[in-house]
């Protein structure tokens, strides 16, 4: 029995690869866009302007306080009611981006706030404008505390792409879901799905840990 299942599974392998490609596409797009938006919002959030902070804090709390599944449902099922028709792929990238931006915003803002005030004062005193201060003095230094949690967030988002399978996108998880209807060996099928995710995610997890140790030794380093 297992022999036949294994054989069928290997036959389906191309479909898994196709699904993996969809997963990679969705991941890459949403990772990129949420990084751009997250950095932008995070820099703004670090200014601690009262009115902006209230809005951004509400946004972050809503995203952090509700399951991603519910967020996808809202984007996919409710936007059409407001006249915005999006296909599954765009909905997936959109909801993942909205989700990721909230977290990355916090990571970036948190990183910036670890930079000692004296750096800002020195930059201000020499006449640099706020955008110049951010670009040349603050953000380059903030990258150090930002990078490890950022990579960690990337891993979380790649895993969350599995949830987009519920709106019909044929990613790796959905291919597994289809396959298991034909080959009722859940362990084999989702074992394979797991391995495919593992191959993408584990290197990133390892890299994030590596970054963390690398960057913390540099700090205590020279002098």
């Amino acid at each position: 029995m297992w022999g036949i299942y294994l054989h069928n599974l290997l036959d389906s392998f191309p479909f898994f690869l196709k699904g993996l490609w969809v997963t990679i596409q969705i991941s890459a797009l949403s990772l990129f866009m949420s990084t751009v938006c997250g950095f932008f919002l995070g820099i703004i959030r670090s200014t601690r302007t009262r009115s902006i902070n209230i809005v951004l804090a509400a946004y972050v709390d809503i995203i952090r306080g509700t399951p991603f599944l519910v967020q996808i449902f809202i984007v996919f099922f409710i936007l059409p009611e407001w006249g915005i028709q999006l296909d599954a792929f765009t909905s997936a990238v959109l909801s993942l981006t909205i989700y990721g931006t909230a977290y990355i915003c916090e990571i970036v803002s948190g990183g910036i706030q670890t930079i000692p005030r004296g750096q800002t004062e020195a930059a201000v005193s020499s006449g640099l404008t706020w955008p110049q201060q951010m670009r040349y003095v603050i953000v380059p230094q903030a990258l150090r505390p930002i990078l490890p949690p950022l990579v960690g967030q990337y891993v979380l988002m790649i895993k969350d792409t599995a949830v987009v399978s519920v709106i019909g996108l044929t990613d790796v998880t959905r291919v597994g879901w289809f396959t298991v209807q034909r080959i009722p060996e859940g362990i084999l099928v989702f074992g394979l799905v797991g391995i495919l995710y593992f191959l993408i995610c584990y290197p990133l997890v390892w890299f994030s840990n590596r970054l963390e140790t690398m960057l913390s030794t540099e700090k205590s380093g020279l002098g």
Partner: protein
Amino acid sequence: MLKTFNFRVIFEMMPQFLHGLGNTAWICLVALIGALLMGIISCVMRLSGKRLISFPAVAYIEMIRSTPLLAQLYFFYFGLPGLGIPLTETQTGIMALSLNSGAYTAEIIRAGIVSIPKGQLEAATASGLSLFQRLRYIILPQAIGVTIPALLGQMIVLVKDSALLALISVFELTRAGQLMASERFMPAEGFFTTAAFYLVIYFVLKFLSQQWQKRLIFQQDR
């Protein structure tokens, strides 16, 4: 848009939502206990010096952390029947949640234990306490105080993760919203109400976590 928001139907469906909420609540509590168990066991295994014992723990933690919860859920949901293990959807869900959260809990506990100054462990060992005694009297009490906020955070994650159980037909909070969307054709009312419930849980847990942290700081200032 809010004008067309059908509050009356939400009111009608409230029993359903509350039923779903109740299920979400006890599922998460049971899963949290399971996660704590898994977490403590795998953490202790991992911190033991012996490769034979620590390796399975490390493998478990890394596999969980590098694969999506949904894939793990489907793994058990579709895989267990094949092995002749007949669990209900709810039981399967709780098991998957426990195993998943357990891995992250193990890391949280490990971070808490590692944060205890080494000098204390050395003093404890020097005074002749066994591993079990060191754990019980020195390590765990201190690790717990630091760990509680992180654990509350993990509880928040668990509540959000439990939403995935809707996909294997468990009747919890998200499924209640889903049914309102599919049976009453009111996705907005359904999912926004669901979201609102989750937000309430989130803010309550967040508040509890902040209160605990304040209490910790108060204690340390003695």
